[in-house]
């Protein structure tokens, strides 16, 4: 009896089990990026910034596994993943192109307690996104809006072109609202005519102009390709940000394939 009780308790505490997720709706975000709205029975809830592991199994038993950030705020019943299709990817083309409403696949999560923010974490909240690295940061901004937090927030978002900016309308709406975050774009390859914003890769000067000297309570989150993250994190530390309050999520050289 005692043994059963102990095993039962350990089983209940085990944080991550594989679950079946069902696609409810696929929402195109950009030509290469889509958001997957998922129904996940038994989902325990999550915190903004967390991710899931997705596992696909072929008929011959071959398995491919990748991590994807959750885009939905903690308040959402649906698990929402925003996925960029990588041409040579094993997993992302299936998720973005082949999956249909009602299809199911395996995921486990939510995962991570380090790269997370909720209103109790304080701020100011300083966010730096490279490409699809905006996804976990968007979950933080959506959570901030959902709870009506007045923690100051700034997002510096680097994208190659205006059409590759994910969540553009929502970011502009959030940024234009009362108490909304300050949203600053830098467009590194193509810009609309008359563009007066930043037009280069992020650097120390840009970080200084956008974020300035750190508040002692500032929390910074940086997500993007590995090199992007190194430049942004090193730049923030050079501005005086406490390295332990500059949290990074690198997604490698090719993104989350």
């Amino acid at each position: 009896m005692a043994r059963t009780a102990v095993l039962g308790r350990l089983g209940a505490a085990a944080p991550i089990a594989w679950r079946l997720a069902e696609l409810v709706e696929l929402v195109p975000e950009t030509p290469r990026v889509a958001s997957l709205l998922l129904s996940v029975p038994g989902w325990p809830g999550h915190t903004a910034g967390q991710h899931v592991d997705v596992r696909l199994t072929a008929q011959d038993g071959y398995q491919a596994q990748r991590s994807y950030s959750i885009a939905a705020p903690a308040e959402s019943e649906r698990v929402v993943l925003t996925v960029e299709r990588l041409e040579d990817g094993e997993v992302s083309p299936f998720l973005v192109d082949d999956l249909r409403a009602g299809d199911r696949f395996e995921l486990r999560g939510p995962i991570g307690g380090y790269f997370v923010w909720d209103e109790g974490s304080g701020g100011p909240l300083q966010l730096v996104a490279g490409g699809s690295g905006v996804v976990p940061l968007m979950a933080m901004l959506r959570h901030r809006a959902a709870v009506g937090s007045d923690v100051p927030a700034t997002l510096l978002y680097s994208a190659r072109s205006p059409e590759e900016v994910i969540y553009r309308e929502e970011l502009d709406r959030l940024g234009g609202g009362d108490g909304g975050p300050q949203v600053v774009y830098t467009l590194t390859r193509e810009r609309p005519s008359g563009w007066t914003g930043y037009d280069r890769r992020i650097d120390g000067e840009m970080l200084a102009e956008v974020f300035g000297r750190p508040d002692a309570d500032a929390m910074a989150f940086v997500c993007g390709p590995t090199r992007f993250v190194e430049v942004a994190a090193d730049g923030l530390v050079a501005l005086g940000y406490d390295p332990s309050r500059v949290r990074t999520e690198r997604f490698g050289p090719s993104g989350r394939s």
Partner: protein
Amino acid sequence: MESADLKLDGNALGGLLGEIFVSEMTVARSTCAACGAVREVGALAVYAQAPGTVVRCPGCDAVLLRIARGEGRIWLELRGVSCLELRTGS
């Protein structure tokens, strides 16, 4: 491609370590046996392209832990970690 391009964060270990430990491991604090630096696992440097996963100290680059899996088993080598501090939730 340089190895620097392949670096990930300890955050990427959450799922794998979640198969081994009951605690949320990205907020566990590890002490580097080589330089003594104490960091949360989420802040460590991770290289996942090898046959196994190699985790290094971002300060001194020493190997902290190595994880390999296969044939229904997981191997966890912790030789580079002198202390691992986990949250118990109580």
